[in-house]
Structures are given as C-alpha cells and as structure tokens.
C-alpha cells in the first residue's frame, strides 16, 4: 500500500511538471508579446530576455493609434462581426425551425443540399465567388463580407440538430391553442434554444473577427480594412518597429480575450458539442 501511494505521488509530481511545461509553451509567446510591446525596438531582442522592462515605454500604445488607423480597423471589424453574427443567428434559427418542425415539399432535398456544402471548403469556390461579387460591384464594400458569411450552412445544420431534440408535442399543443408558426418560433423555440444560439454566436464571432483571407480579397482600401488585415499591413510597412508591432498585436488580441474569458464556459461546451455530433 505504501509503495503504491509513493508511486502515485511521484506520478502526480511528474504530471504537474509536464502540465507546467505545457502551460509555459502555450503562454510564454503571449507574455513575451506583452513585454516586447513596452520596449524600444533595440531592446526587444536583448538577451537574456528582460521579461519586465525596466523603463516601460507606454508611448508605444499611444503611437500605434497615430501610425495606423487602428480605431477605424477595430470599428470596421466590430461592425462586421456584430452584423454577421446577428444575421447568422436570425436566418439560421428561422430556417432550422422549418426544417425540424414543418412539413413541406422538397424539405429533405433542400436540407441535403445544405449538409453537402458544409464539407465544401470555401477555398474551392472563393475565386468564382469573388468574380461574381466584382461583377455586382461589391468588392471593396463591407456588404460583400456580410453576404459571404451571414448565410452559412453550418448555422442551419447546428440549429436544426438542436430543434430536432425538442419534442414535437410542444409545437402541436401550441398549434391547437391557435398560435401561428411565427409565434411558436418566437415565443417557444427561440427561448428554448439558448445553448445552441450561444454556441453559434461564439463560432461566428471568432471566425468573423479572426477571418483573414476573405477581407484580404475583398477589402483593399485602407479605411475599409479589418483589424487582421490592417495589422498585417502595418507589419508589412513597419517591419522593424518591433515594439510597435507587438503593441498593435496586443490591442488586436484584447477584444477576443475579453469575449473568450467571459464566455469561456460556453466555448468549451460549444466545441465539445460540435465534436460530439460527429
């Protein structure tokens, strides 16, 4: 018994050592980023690393707002993210209700069409899609990004899976009471589907906020750019201003960190449930 518990203790200690190393690997790049963002360019690469700068240069965080229209970029990204997420939630849950709870001609064929496109990478049809948008004169508009991302098949699929689990009797009873389908959707189904809605919110938020290739193709005018391509442009222009680049990177991270930490519980549940469906 004693040998057993001693071996257990050694195992535990070993486990913690491994975990701490893992945590350091995951976190140190962020700590280094934060530390470098408060240094002069010439001090960024000083070795051994000075983790806490002796004379923190807070002015880096002032300068970046002047050097690039960072405020504009953040505003653009927030605007796009909020609109896309809202449209995505609204249209997906609306369509999913019909797919799950209503009978109509062509329902299964339509749904199959949705499911089939989930497996189709956007990169396969991004070129014709771009040419189509260009012929509609939508390149260099935010509307293009919204159209691109607001009507995803994934959203409809996710919501329908959830509505399928809601008993049909609930809707039947409401119909007998004379409620219209729109009211059943709005007053019964929507309030019930909070977990699925929050999962979809998180996925859409992170994807839209961090999207790179889409905005890079469509938004070439500086005042339209999102934070991701704006930051990339900044890195291209001032490639040796290390302190400033790191400060701008920290600013680009902050909104996602806040959303992530406050919705962390849903994040984990959301990813987990998306994994379980497979």
């Amino acid at each position: 018994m004693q040998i057993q518990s001693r071996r257990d203790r050694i195992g535990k200690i070993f486990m913690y050592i491994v975990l701490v190393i893992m945590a350091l690997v995951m976190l140190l790049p962020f700590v280094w980023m934060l530390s470098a963002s408060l240094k002069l360019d010439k001090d960024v690469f000083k070795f051994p690393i000075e983790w806490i700068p002796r004379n923190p240069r807070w002015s880096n965080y002032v300068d970046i707002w002047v050097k690039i229209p960072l405020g504009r970029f953040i505003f653009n990204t927030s605007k796009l993210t909020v609109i896309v997420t809202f449209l995505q939630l609204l249209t997906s849950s609306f369509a999913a209700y019909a797919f799950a709870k209503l009978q109509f001609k062509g329902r299964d064929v339509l749904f199959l069409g949705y499911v089939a496109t989930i497996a189709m990478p956007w990169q396969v049809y991004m070129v014709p899609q771009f040419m189509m948008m260009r012929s509609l004169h939508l390149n260099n508009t935010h509307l293009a990004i919204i159209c691109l991302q607001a009507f995803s098949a994934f959203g409809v699929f996710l919501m329908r899976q959830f509505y399928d689990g809601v008993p049909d009797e609930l809707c039947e009873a409401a119909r007998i009471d004379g409620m219209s389908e729109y009211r059943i959707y709005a007053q019964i189904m929507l309030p019930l589907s909070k977990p699925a809605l929050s999962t979809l919110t998180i996925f859409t938020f992170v994807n839209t906020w961090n999207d790179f290739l889409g905005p890079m193709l469509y938004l070439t005018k500086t005042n339209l750019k999102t934070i991701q391509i704006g930051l990339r442009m900044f890195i291209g222009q001032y490639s040796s201003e290390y302190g400033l680049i790191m400060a701008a990177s920290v600013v680009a991270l902050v909104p996602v960190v806040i959303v992530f930490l406050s919705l962390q519980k849903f994040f984990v549940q959301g990813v987990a449930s998306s994994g379980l469906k497979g």
Partner: protein
Amino acid sequence: MISRKAEIRKQLVAYSFIAPNFIGFAIFTLVPIVFAFALAFLHWDGANPITFAGLENFRNLLDDDQFKAALKNTILYALGTVPLTLVSSLFLAVLLNQGIHGRNFFRTVSFFPYVASLVAVAAVWNMLFNPAKGPVNLLLLALGAKSVPGWAADKQWAMITVIMFSIWKFTGYYMIIYLAGLQGINPELYEAANLDGANAWQRLRFVTLPQLSSTTFFVMVMLTIQCFKVYDIIYMLTQGGPGTATLVLVYDIYNKAFISWDLGAASAVAMVLFLLVLCVTLVQFIWEKKR
C-alpha cells in the same frame, strides 16, 4: 377546397421560414460552387470573353511545377501536423481529465492559442524564431548548440516551423473535443479495470483508447481537412517560401487566380483540393455506416 387552401398556406409559411437564409445561401454559396465546377473546364482571364477549354486546365497541371510542389507540400504538411496534433491533444486531455489542482487554468491556457488572432501570434512567432536575433536561437546557442536552424528562412526548416506553429495553435481546440469524449466513457469500466489490477498505463491502453476510437476518428478527419485548406498560417510565416518549400494548394489557387489571372487553372487546382477533401469525407461516411 378549404383544406387544400389551408395546405397551400401551410407550405407557404414553411417556405417563408426557409427563404431568408436560402436566398442568401443560394446566391452567395450555391451559384459560386456551380460556377467553380464549370470554370475548371473554361479559359478566362477575368476581362476577355470566356472560351471552352475541355480538359486542358487539368492536363496543364501535370507539367506545372508550382502545382506539383503545392500538392506535395499540402500532403506533407497534413502528414506532419495531423498525427502530432492528435497525440498532443489526446495527451493533454487525458492529463486534464483527472482531479488535479488548477485544472480550469490549464484548460483555459491551452485553448488560448486557438482563439488568439492569427496575425498577432504569427508576428510573435516570427520574432521568437528570428534566425539571427530571436530568443529561441539565442537560447539554443547559450545552451551550447554549435549551429542553429534558420527556421522560416531555411528551405529545410520552413515546413517544420509551419508544422510546429500549427500544432501549437490547434492543440487546444482538439483537446476540448477529446475532453468531451473522455467524459462520455462509463466510469464502471475503470472500476472493473481497477478490480482486475490494471495500472495506469493498462487503463489507458485497454479502456481509454478503445473507448475514444470514434472521437479520434472524428478529430483525424477534421484536422486533415483543416490542413488541406491551410492558407493564412503559411502566408504569415513563410509566404510559401523559401522557393516553393511551403507552397500549398490554396496558395497556388490564389496565385493562379489573382496574380496570373488564369481563373480556369485556379479552378482546376480548386477541384483537386475538393477531391482531396471529398475522399476524406467519404472515408468518414463509410466508417460511420460500418459502425
């Protein structure tokens, strides 16, 4: 008569639910998909009239060095990234599924690289792994290394650098999926294993891993598809270089379409990408049917 009218009304209500999403979906997704298939058999530079190409775009790919390098690198990238990410995420999940202090902290920390904006973390990596003055190489030198790798700037090391970054970025996400799988395992199985005197390694080998096989399969498929469509990581770390050392399929599509304006060729490469993903999806489909 009345019941038929009611029936039509019911159908119209149903269609009104579908319409807002479907109209957007049809215009911005379905039409471009059909167009993508057609374009692979056409010549178009985006300005002059479209002409028919037949199989020419595909035949040209056979002697296209850029494409061949891209196809090879994409598969290489997937072969490197998928197994290592799988193992590291499974390993982390198993560790974090036990009653240990700071479990939530460790989970949050390992999920962090996944949500963090790619441009920002790639900028940090580029500095950390700077061949001449980055802390990683300076540390290696300080530890007594005779020569240090050139990382993203070196033909031999560029792909390894990209793969290392991808593992770091993806692990947290798949760890969460594994954690969900682990929580679905019946605890009685472990009790039975304990009664049989199984040690920790045997419990992992004979209970955990077999029970997780469907999760592992799902993770493998998702990861492989994610690797096949990689673009942004490459763009930010190596720009496809040095030479063609890290050129991948989506990079080739982008170059053919928006640099050379050979849209037919770009679509032909896109079809190759589609076939790769389709194969992986079909394998998953067949495997799930079999279960």
